[in-house]
């Protein structure tokens, strides 16, 4: 019985593991705790959303995973190796100003591809230009692109180096709501065509329920994992279906925002 169940359920390796991670910053000579006792396993190919009130340490958590910060307690491991710094195998996409304004669309996508041959680079760039639908803008500078296009470009630059993990720090937070909806669709499409592990920070409950396999809810500072919600709805998700709304209500309740406002 159990063997059979094991065969039916997709067995996924743990890609990223956070073990008793704590993070404190020095501020005015005092130590301020931002994250405490974070334990989390992320499977290979999983789509995780981190949500929580602003200032709860979501971005800090992402920066710890990305190796931009070192935890003051515990450890972050990826493929059983302790994360010791940023690595091109895991790319962080920033909320704003992440693309290089002095490079064209092509130059940005090719930024991490210096080691490839010219032909390979060309091919890679073309592929991702197509994927994020920026055809015709190859030679355009970011200042002439809309905010949504700039974020697509940033995602393309990240994907072009073929990373295992994509960290996204409120990547659509600065976009208008319609563009944001479109971008979510694009991201899901890309995620489904090229499975990568995605860790996505957002303060938008809808965004989390629409995108994630699992939603990690952080408490107010110092941030602790308050809950982990599995969203078991197949993509594409109908954002007005009963089960979607149920998950959404559930998440709002967990954040403590249900029936307010």
């Amino acid at each position, binding site marked *: 019985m159990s063997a059979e169940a094991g065969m039916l359920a997709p067995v996924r390796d743990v890609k990223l593991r956070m073990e008793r991670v704590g993070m404190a910053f020095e501020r005015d000579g005092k130590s301020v705790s931002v994250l405490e006792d974070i334990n989390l396993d992320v499977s290979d190919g999983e789509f995780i959303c981190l949500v929580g009130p602003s200032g709860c340490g979501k971005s800090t958590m992402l920066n710890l995973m990305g190796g931009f910060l070192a935890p003051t307690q515990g450890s972050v491991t990826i493929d059983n190796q302790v994360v010791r710094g*940023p690595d091109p195998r*895991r*790319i*962080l996409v920033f909320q704003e100003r992440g693309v*290089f304004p*002095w490079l064209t669309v092509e130059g940005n996508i090719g*930024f991490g591809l210096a080691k490839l041959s010219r032909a390979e680079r060309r091919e890679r760039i073309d592929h991702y230009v197509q994927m994020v639908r920026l055809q015709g803008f190859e030679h355009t500078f970011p200042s002439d692109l809309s905010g949504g296009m700039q974020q697509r470009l940033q995602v393309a630059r990240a994907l072009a180096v073929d990373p295992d993990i994509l960290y996204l720090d409120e990547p659509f937070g600065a976009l208008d709501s319609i563009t944001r909806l479109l971008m979510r669709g694009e991201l899901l499409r890309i995620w489904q065509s090229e499975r990568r592990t995605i860790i996505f920070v957002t303060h938008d409950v809808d965004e989390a329920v629409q995108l994630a396999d699992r939603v990690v809810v952080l408490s107010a500072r110092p941030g602790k994992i308050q809950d982990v919600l599995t969203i078991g709805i197949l993509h594409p998700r109908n954002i007005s279906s009963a089960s979607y709304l149920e998950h959404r209500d559930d998440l709002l309740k967990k954040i403590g925002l249900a029936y307010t406002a």
Partner: protein
Amino acid sequence: MKLLVRLRPFAFIAVLLAIWQVAVNRHPAQLLPGPLGVAHGIGDLLKHGLMLKYVVASLFRVTWGFLLAAVIAIPLGLTIGWYRRAGMALSPLVQVFRPISPLAWIPIAILWFGVGDLAAIFLIFVGCFFPLMLTAMSAVHNIPAVYVNVGRNFGLSAADFIYRVLYPAVVPQLIIGSRITLGIAWLVVVAAEMIAVNSGLGFLIIDARNAGNRYDLVIAGMIIIGTIGLLLDLGMRSLERVKSFRWGYSED
């Protein structure tokens, strides 16, 4: 219509010149030569080949002084700007040297280099050094952290990081700083040439006064200085329109 708008500043200048000439004709007290006299002076300079000689001499000194300063001050400023502790350690020294007019260095320049090109070049070098270094320092401070983090994320070597992130990120500010500094250099060369050398536009002005009160030549020299200063500025400004630099000047 457009042509008319473009001609407006020239028409304005023409009117001023006319007023000037009329005023000089009515009060011929030798306080100021008229525009015709100045034009005659410029003609004299051209005829004797002095114009080209002096302009070239001045530009030669400015070019060398400015380039030497740029080659040393910009990398130094970028380095100091990157290592903030170094910046803090050097800051008092810089703050003391910076407000000293480059002209205060004239006696030292002559003492070290004698009367000649080197003294003038040294003065321009001194005048350009601090503005360029401070520009480079602040350019590094102003690089958004995001660019640095992206550079780190993509695993760039130190050399690649400098060439592909740091340098392109600071270029727009360096161009602005260089433009302002070149203006300073052009101010300094005139003063330097009045004292430290026997050629150039500054020398022309002081020599025209000393050797016969040729005030038409004094004004001619001033006009040439102004015109070349303008051309230098326009040249630097055109760099700001280069596409891969232009992002640094958008107002957002």
